[in-house]
């Protein structure tokens, strides 16, 4: 087990080195990155000056090593727009993004399980057909359009829920300000509903389909037939014999799900004016604030890799067969 964790840890480190290299070299895609920092009418001398000041006149590998060694210490340079360290700005926005991702995950998993299980047990019923139609639609609807429609109908027409902004939950929770949290949690939850649903619907649809098909497969297995033949109650067969095994493929994709939701939230945050890293990164791109862009991209990648590592280790602990493959 320890050996396995160490190996996975080493792999994650290699991945992070790769990601940092990618995030850094993206700047060079258009040739000389100096042009990203000057305006169209700059003179050649001015451009050369900026190039030297930003260190772009050094060899590529020196620049990367410099970048990486600073990045490890959380130093991504100063944001040109905010005049603060880029990493601090990203960290400030991170709780909002994590909060949204967790709610999206909740939507994607909690609703998918009963829908998928019931659809499989009542195969070919109206419920099954309806759920699968809904799932098909859910996988075809663009999340940003769903968000806009929710704003239009639930927010503007019905005036039922807030359509933008956020009331923090994670920050007071970790600061231990429970009294304040208690006072605002209702409002915070209301602000989370529309973005959370928008973020989770695609995965919810995918998971419902996945759980249904894996339940159907398991329900056709010999040991389920045996259980039925022994006279075990149907509800017990479904929940105890079939459901547990049907969950295995679902758990497998949950690690990847986080990354998927995390990147999907870049769009959701922009629709609902959610003050997270996704909104920040798009804003930074439009402002050509590339230090913030790099800091955001690498921070999100670290969160993603960390979560994957955690899920993998947890999964191995649950199902020891994987360690040896």
């Amino acid at each position, binding site marked *: 087990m320890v050996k396995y964790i160490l190996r996975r840890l080493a792999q994650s480190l290699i991945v992070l080195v790769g990601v940092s290299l990618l995030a850094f070299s993206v700047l060079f895609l258009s040739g000389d990155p100096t*042009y990203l920092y000057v305006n169209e009418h700059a003179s050649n001398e001015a451009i050369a000056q900026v190039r030297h000041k930003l260190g772009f006149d050094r060899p590529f590998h020196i620049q990367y090593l410099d970048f990486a060694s600073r990045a490890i210490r959380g130093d991504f340079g100063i944001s040109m727009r905010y005049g603060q360290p880029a990493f601090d700005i990203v960290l400030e926005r991170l709780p909002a993004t994590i909060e949204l991702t967790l709610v999206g995950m909740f939507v994607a998993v909690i609703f998918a399980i009963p829908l998928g299980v019931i659809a499989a047990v009542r195969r070919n019923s109206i419920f099954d057909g309806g759920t699968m139609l809904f799932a098909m639609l859910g996988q*075809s609807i663009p999340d*940003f359009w769903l968000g806009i429609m929710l704003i239009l109908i639930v927010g503007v027409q019905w005036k039922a829920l807030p359509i933008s902004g956020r009331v923090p939950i994670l920050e007071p929770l970790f600061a231990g300000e429970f009294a304040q949290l208690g006072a605002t949690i209702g409002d915070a939850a209301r602000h989370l509903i529309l973005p959370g649903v928008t973020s989770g619907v695609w995965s919810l649809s995918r998971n419902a389909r996945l759980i249904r098909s894996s339940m159907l497969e398991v329900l056709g297995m010999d040991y389920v037939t045996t259980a039925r033949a022994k006279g075990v109650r149907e509800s017990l067969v479904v929940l105890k014999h079939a459901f547990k095994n049907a969950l295995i493929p679902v758990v497998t994709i949950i690690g990847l799900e986080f990354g998927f939701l995390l990147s999907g939230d870049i769009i959701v945050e922009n629709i609902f004016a959610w003050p997270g890293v996704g909104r920040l990164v*798009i804003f930074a791109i439009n402002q050509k604030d590339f230090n913030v862009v790099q800091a955001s991209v690498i921070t999100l990648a670290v969160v993603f890799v960390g979560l994957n590592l955690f899920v993998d280790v947890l999964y191995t602990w649950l199902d020891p067969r994987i360690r040896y493959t």
Partner: protein
Amino acid sequence: MLDRMRRSLLAAKFPIFGLAILLMVIVLALGAKWISPYDPNLVQVEDRLFPPAFAEGGSSAHWLGTDTLGRDVLSRLIYGTQVSLMVGFMAVIVAGTIGVSLGLIAGFFGGWIDDVIMRVADIQLAFPFILLSISVLAVLQARRGFEANITTLQRLIPLILTLGVAQWVTYARMARSVTLSLREKEFVEAARAMGDSKASIIFRHIMPNALAPLIVLASFNVASTILAEAALSFLGLGVPPAIPTWGGMLSESRELLVSGVWWLATIPGLAIMITVLSINLIGDWLRDFFDPRLRN
């Protein structure tokens, strides 16, 4: 095979529906010049914000209404099919070509070649693909001011390449796993004994066996790429503003949501959803068709 395909397709209703819609979209894209009632970029300020013809206050001059600049929504919608389809299909071709080639090579040769290719794949998987596209496009977009005038397709190339390169990993993994399972099979052994070249073994003996799952994967991937293009255009990153796109139309609609201008937000979204749904339906059918367990 083709005959069986035709019969299976005719037996199922949903994929027929999907195929019909997709064909219609393709016709619209190819014939946009002749079909669309107006120039999609024609600004008629006096006609601004007409609702669709079927709604109150609508005019039959603009069936689906007009936007803030008085541009005809139907015409923009029709021209939008070009970008969606072009990017959707071409990015998948790019992703498939890179992914399948690398996957076949990794699976067939094994050893350090396999290690290197699959580690690169891992790195890319750890980089959420929209994030990768965003960072690449951001840099390319920032440079845009320095470029001279170029054609629509040329403007789309960065987006197509970005979406293609961002998605090769799944193809590589699938092609590799099929190759691994076939490498030691008798027919490959026989081809090797007959003195076939490595390239011939890979492309003539192994690849045809991997084709079915790859086609299924590609069909779903076209759908998800169209969604991704729309999302990037929505964020203002995908396609330059002068080219009408569904995602771009949606993005422009947002400011007017609260003032009750519903058609600008509803119509392009429906177009995206119906197109993606039809491709997904076809993909679903292809998957069932190629799955021998479901064959009776």
